[in-house]
């Protein structure tokens, strides 16, 4: 029996350059678990929320020094039989469409590629990065968006059968156990003189 690939998160930086150019974030097998793949294949999108935090070690407590957030959305297009992936960030000002991929693994490989993030200290001290990821295939709070997703770009349907189908789709998707997974990874501590 093939072993499921293990989720990997990494926050890397060159000790000498971290104070000026920030860190590099990479991931592996974020969509590797069977439930997520099943939901993806059944048309439910996955949303991966990235949050990279920069923490400063203080005397009494550690303080968050900076934060950068972005999202990656992955959705299966049954017509083209491809997994589309898109990245959004910079408070909505960044939109990057990675295009379609024939397999989940190929999409994972794209979204997991090292991404440089310009989050660096602006003063001296001891710092570390904290990478937080939330992988959300389906949650209660996302139901409205999911319904919108199911319905597509047309105007709201007046067909009651469609409305019922959407409602049943909601219940079924919840029974499938759509959930939210939370990952966290911390970098080594580095010092800025």
């Amino acid at each position, binding site marked *: 029996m093939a072993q499921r690939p293990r989720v990997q998160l990494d926050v890397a930086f060159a000790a000498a350059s971290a104070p000026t150019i920030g860190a590099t974030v990479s991931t592996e097998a974020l969509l590797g678990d069977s439930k997520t793949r099943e939901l993806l294949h059944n048309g439910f999108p996955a949303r991966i929320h990235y949050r990279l935090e920069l923490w400063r070690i203080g005397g009494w407590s550690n303080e968050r020094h900076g934060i950068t957030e972005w999202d990656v959305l992955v959705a299966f297009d049954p017509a083209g039989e491809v997994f589309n992936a898109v990245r959004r960030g910079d408070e909505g000002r960044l939109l990057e469409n990675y295009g379609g991929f024939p397999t989940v693994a190929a999409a994972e490989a794209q979204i997991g590629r090292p991404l440089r993030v310009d989050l660096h200290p602006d003063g001296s001290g001891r710092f570390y990065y904290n990478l937080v990821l939330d992988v959300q295939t389906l949650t209660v709070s996302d139901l409205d968006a999911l319904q*919108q997703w199911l319905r*597509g770009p047309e105007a709201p349907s007046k067909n009651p059968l469609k409305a019922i189908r*959407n409602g049943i789709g909601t219940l079924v998707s919840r029974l499938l156990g759509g959930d939210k997974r939370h990952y966290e990874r911390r970098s080594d501590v580095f010092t800025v003189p």
Partner: protein
Amino acid sequence: MLTRRLALLAGLIPAVAGAQRTSERVGPVPLDVRREAAARWNGPNAVRASRRLEIASGEEINGNVALQRGALDIAGHVAGSVLAVNASVTLRPSARIDGDILVVGGSLTGRDSARVTGSVRVFADTMIYRQEGDRLVAAEDEAREADSWWRRLERRADGNRSQAVRIVQAGAYNRVEGLPISLGPMAHRLTPWGSFDADAAAITRTGNFNSEHADVGHRLAGEVRFGRERGIGIGGRIFNVVDPIEDWQLSDVETALAAVVVRRDYRDYYQRHGTNGYVTLYGARDLSLTGSYGVERWTARSAHNPFSLFHGGEPWRPNPRVDQGVFHIADIALGVDTRTDPDDPWSGWWVRADAEHGSGTIESPGLTSDPNPRVGPVNYTRGFFDVRRYNRLGPDAQLNLRVLFAGLLGGDELPLERRLSVDGPGALPGYDFHGSRTGIDVGTCNAGVSLPGTPAECDRIALAQIEYRGDLRIDFSRIWGDWPRYYHGAHGDAVWVLFADAGRGWRAGPRDNGLTYSRTSLPALSTFRSDIGFGLDIQGIGVYAAKSLATPSEPVNFFVRLRHRF
């Protein structure tokens, strides 16, 4: 030099692009984006080129830059927008773009180190187009566009949504309603000046299917917001709902699971039927402020016999009978949330401050241990102040603090719907939730009279909690690869928790036997209940043991939490 290079490149455009035809398969780049790219190419550009273009450090372009089929390297200043069609863009750290960047059919590197004032959009898929002289014409394919996932995504990003019938859970599973299900239409629309929301729903209460009368509530709500990022929201609601009397102790999920699995409901409920309006100010990410006013009738509800997985043969704890009457409620609520993560905070503040003034008439009093329950007109002011501070002591440890004070601020004594209690796993876990105790109970403020359901009777409560959380460097993800859980790899998969709590409730009035204190005094700290405990939080599921300190006869309580204790 730059002009000369462009002139040479421009001559190549028709021959190269002319090889492309609309008969080729159209890629998933949205049609409006293809059209926009073509319009930008055909519009005013300070620089338009093919193949390769370099804007060196120190160089300045006073206008838009457009490139197709090549590579664009920018180290200088572009005082306009950048367009790359089937081309890739590299931004050097010294690059400065005053406008937007649109890359279609290519990639963008260096975004994080350069300075870009406008938006950045990158579409990896190749754009299909044809060249007509100097003009670029995007391939049109409306039929494909209708099914484009991009259209759906963009529409979703717009924030507009509506449903003819939305079926959602209307609240936590409980012994009064069973599983409340809300069915009805909803709509959310963004407008140039803000947004509006509207929804109407019938609430079916499944805990009473055996009744001859359908148990159906309703909720109609509308809200108009003026402003996108910040502004003012005005809304109103008409409702007939069943609400918990106290919802601050455990989360909805925890309450529902305890009810449906082990037949233990940690809340009491009452029915609210009325209308209210509210004004909310928003704008700061961490701050909310809402004022509301409404008129509603409060009615007691009795427990039914909904399904539970275990202990199905045992009766549910009765739902206490509360005061019934009509009340005018004015409320103002302030929220501050600077936590690093709402579910798994490492540091920050969480503050909830709420002040409510109520006036009305108690027509039928509920059951209390007070021998002279209040009937008739009542005016009260109640406050609720919950302050939490999360401190990250180091990469692997945190110390969290919470202080809560709630209760009567002025006026008459509180109706039972606004009374409080402080015991059980959500507050003082060393003391059983609404347990039967002899004599005075400073957890529920029962004066020693056995009452069905053991209602909360305190006019005021005070609670302080402290906990230390330390990471255990244990990796469970290898073992429980598909185990359903919330946290994966968070805080090292497992956290040990050491905690202590102290608190009590009291009545406000003429001082008597240790349960009632004057409105201007506080009980002595020596009268507070206290406990201490230890737990393991494994990927978001915490198993804890708590032991009372102030009452040694209380046994050790074991409990499970699905979220942080606070």
